[in-house]
């Protein structure tokens, strides 16, 4: 529920309800805020497992899917704002941007990777895909890295905010790598002594 607050706030500003507004450049403001919250929620989603494990609070896992879907909602709106309001369905310029502008290539790829994850987020798809579901959903790591790259590559000089996201993401992915390595060590039987 809390995750809907930034969206509600943006809607108030978009429709200029009360004393709120999006300022002189509403399209850029909308796009920036939606993308920013999408990335924050995506990183928050990736923080769920490490927190649940290290704090021994398994119930935390139950919010992971919801957080992920909230992240996807913000990023889908971010994408749509770009596609509709910023580019006005101008497919030629959209394709040119995706191909020529590395930061857009990264952002577009990240979003494209998240679409199948959102689609297969239901219980039915989890059952249907079985073990393959886990493998498929590892794409979220790639998407999150590309999301940070997308942000970093478009700032002009002030890299402080993207640096914070990249650091948190690196810590979360580092935790997973360490755990994966520890697990594979456990799985492999110790060499038998002769």
């Amino acid at each position, binding site marked *: 529920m809390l995750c809907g607050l930034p969206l509600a706030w943006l809607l108030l500003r*978009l429709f*200029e309800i009360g004393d709120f*507004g999006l*300022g*002189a*450049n*509403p*399209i*850029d403001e909308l796009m920036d805020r939606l993308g920013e919250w999408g990335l924050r929620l995506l990183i928050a989603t990736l923080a769920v497992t490490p927190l649940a494990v290290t704090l021994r609070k398994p119930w935390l896992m139950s919010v992971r899917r919801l957080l992920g879907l909230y992240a996807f909602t913000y990023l889908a709106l971010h994408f749509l704002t770009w596609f509709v*309001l910023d580019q*006005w369905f101008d497919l030629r*310029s959209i394709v*040119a*941007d995706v191909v*020529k*502008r*590395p*930061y857009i290539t990264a952002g577009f790829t990240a979003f494209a990777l998240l679409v199948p994850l959102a689609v297969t987020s239901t219980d039915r798809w989890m059952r249907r895909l079985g073990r393959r579901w886990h493998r498929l959903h590892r794409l979220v790591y790639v998407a999150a890295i590309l999301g940070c790259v997308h942000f970093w*590559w*478009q700032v*002009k*000089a*002030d890299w*402080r905010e993207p640096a914070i996201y990249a650091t948190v993401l690196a810590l979360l992915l580092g935790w997973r790598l360490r755990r994966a390595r520890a697990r594979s060590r456990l799985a492999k039987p110790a060499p038998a002594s002769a």
Partner: protein
Amino acid sequence: MPKRRRDPSMALPSEITPREIYLGRRRLLGALAGLAIGGTSLASSPVPARLTYRKNAALSTTEPPNSYEDITTYNNFYEFGTGKADPSRLSGSFRPRPWTVAITGEAEQTGTYTLEDLLKPHPLEERIYRLRCVEAWSMVIPWVGFPLGDLVKRCRPTSRAKYVAFRTVERPSEMPGQRFPVLDWPYVEGLRIDEATHPLTILAVGLYGEVLPNQNGAPLRLVVPWKYGFKSIKSIVEIRFTERQPPTSWNRSAPHEYGFYANVNPEVDHPRWSQARERRIGAGVFSARQPTLPFNGYADQVAALYRGLDLRKNY
């Protein structure tokens, strides 16, 4: 929040509405807060003073200007922060008066001048110019200022003066953005001397007929309408005449992205985004981008300056 642009045939709000009202509650409060925090004298009065000037219609666009609110709340002035709203929010304690400007380098008339002495001989005029930001948005702004060329003439540059370099004030205590090296402070810019003396190049001291607000580069800023906005350096404290091309801040920060010339050019993309089209601020959420014109629409007046120069290499 006014976003619609004005019909040019209509009177300016400043002509019919009392200043205290159209300035807006927020701005007044902000200015008052600035007074309270800075404990400054009444020199930085919350209600800016009207200027005396004539309108220069010949060198002004007839496009409708952006609202005062848009021009003063959507700014790139990294000395006050990198967010577009930071300069209007965080410039309240900046003191643009008293102010001095140092004239240095290859000129006969060098020295440090008070702002008043510097401005005295120059009659002010209004120039309504398009401003095109390198970030692909644009505005139309009614500046009040005078031709830089007139000042250059007064300084009597020597034959060695090929360039004019500018420097922004460095005051981290009043400019919170300068407390972190986002750019290598102080901000510096430069022009070739023929660009500096071109009739379109002005030093601005006002906006909408009033003294320039802090967030727009008070008390003295450059306006070069055919170049990307970052060339139009704000809050100038030094004007230096040089023989060699002076360093410029954005070029130093990212040389492959920002050149010395930075002429508006739809044919030469910024490496990370297209420059072919621009969003006119105030046009509304459902308006498409408009095509960007070579030299921001001032090609007739300035293209001759660059004859024989490869503008792809000299971006």
